[in-house]
């Protein structure tokens, strides 16, 4: 039985540019078969196997669907419409892990030197300094700010090592966005997202997403860079134990560097978003 709170959320189900006519993309959401297709009028529709149309929103290059009654509008990402940014769809990658684990990994900084060696981090620069985490009640999102980390190659456009500043944002249960120092424009942030489609509690399709200021790097290079980063994570994600994300303390011992993860888990638990989570009865 899937909790209503889970059904009432928005989840990505396809890249808008790749949606074809009926039956379109045959996939699943929260364990239920769905079809994502273009109608004759050109509109994108999402249907269950029973032929029931569900709520759809098109945003940020992706199709978002809600199997229940949307609890709120899809999160805002104003940067996506900002002139001068390049929007980069990075395809879709299937990962045998909990959708929540995929998001949590995206929020983690401490693994950079070990998993993204010489790109997003490097030994011996492994320390994660103190940063701030809040659950912002006004927007109902988790935010981490003032995160600083030394990176040998922070972006495709970075020429050498820089201390990168990050902000992390959990904008929806399975969608997170980070804002990081833009190597090309000191007064702007590069925006990188991860949109996760929960196929099942331990299986997901992950859509990396970027909105960057970079007029120079060819599109294919940007896609390769982001796919390289994400695929370095994939083998780690598929081997995490327990498979589901524990929401109660005791299973895993967090450290200072895991504050964002702690807040994410607390937020999920408070909202009853337990799909892909392991909840120990109190």
């Amino acid at each position, binding site marked *: 039985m899937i909790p209503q709170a889970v059904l009432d959320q928005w989840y990505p189900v396809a*890249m808008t540019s790749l949606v074809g006519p009926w039956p379109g993309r045959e996939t699943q959401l929260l364990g239920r078969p769905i079809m994502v297709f273009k109608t004759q009028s050109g509109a994108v529709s999402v249907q269950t196997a029973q032929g029931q149309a569900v709520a759809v929103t098109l945003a940020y290059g992706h199709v978002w669907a809600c199997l229940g009654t949307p609890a709120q509008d899809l999160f805002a990402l104003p940067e996506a419409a900002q002139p001068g940014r390049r929007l980069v769809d990075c395809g879709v990658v*299937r990962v045998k892990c909990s959708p929540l684990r995929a998001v949590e990994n995206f929020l983690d900084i401490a693994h950079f030197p070990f998993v993204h060696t010489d790109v997003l981090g490097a030994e011996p620069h492994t320390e994660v300094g103190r940063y701030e985490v809040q659950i912002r009640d006004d927007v109902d999102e988790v935010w981490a700010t003032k995160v600083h980390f030394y990176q040998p190659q922070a972006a495709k456009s970075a020429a050498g090592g820089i201390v990168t500043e990050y902000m992390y944002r959990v904008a929806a249960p399975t969608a997170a966005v980070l804002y990081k120092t833009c190597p090309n424009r000191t007064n702007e942030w590069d925006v990188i997202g991860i949109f996760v489609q929960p196929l099942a509690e331990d299986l997901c399709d992950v859509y990396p997403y970027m909105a960057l200021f970079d007029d120079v790097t060819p599109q*294919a290079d940007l896609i390769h860079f982001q796919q*390289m*980063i994400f695929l370095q994570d*994939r*083998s780690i994600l598929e081997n995490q134990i327990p498979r589901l994300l524990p929401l109660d303390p005791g299973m895993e011992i967090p450290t200072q560097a895991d504050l964002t993860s702690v807040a994410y888990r607390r937020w999920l638990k408070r909202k009853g978003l337990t799909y892909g989570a392991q909840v120990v009865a109190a």
Partner: protein
Amino acid sequence: MILYDYILSASCYKVRLMAALLGIKLDLVAVDFHPGRAHKSAAFRDLNPAGSIPVLVDGDLVLTESTAMLVYLAQIAGPQWLGEASPQSAARVQNWLAFSGRLNSSLGLARLHDMLHFPADITACRTAGHLCLRELEAHLTQVRLEGRIFLEGTAPSIADIACFPNVALAPDGGVELRDYPSVRLWQRAVRSLPQFIEMPGIHRLHDLKPAPHSGAAA
């Protein structure tokens, strides 16, 4: 020398790895294989009618098979990587190059299926992959009993580089390597080679590097 490349491709990585081990610098041209399927475009087919990657271009020479690229790179910069000179050894290296094609169509396809949604009979892919791994395990176990570690002869060769990527990436396609101890040790030997480079899914040997600050008295 230009390599038309995809960062997640095992076959492209073969060539990048060989070049790195030989100290050859490649100019990489990223091809939007996924999601763009640029390798199937008319423009790309002008270069390679098969519509496959990698493609290696050196002047007038255009190569479209990764194993041929390994031969070419080794001929240029490290003939010792071609194996020993005896007819038997040379032929066995060729045998492994062809075997790497079987790895690609079994373990490699399983990986593309599991990771990037490629259509495939996943059970058949994994079964064929296990058959290949059993063959490899039997050979490498024999080799170890003889006090060696690489596929052919006493030194690493293009045979090892051809077979290594799809084996190392097998878990990406749902094929675990825990039942193949000799294969695992062989992989470690390949990963320990000087100037080894990693790719997503194949991590470098952090545990073999000196710990940070050790001996940092200066």
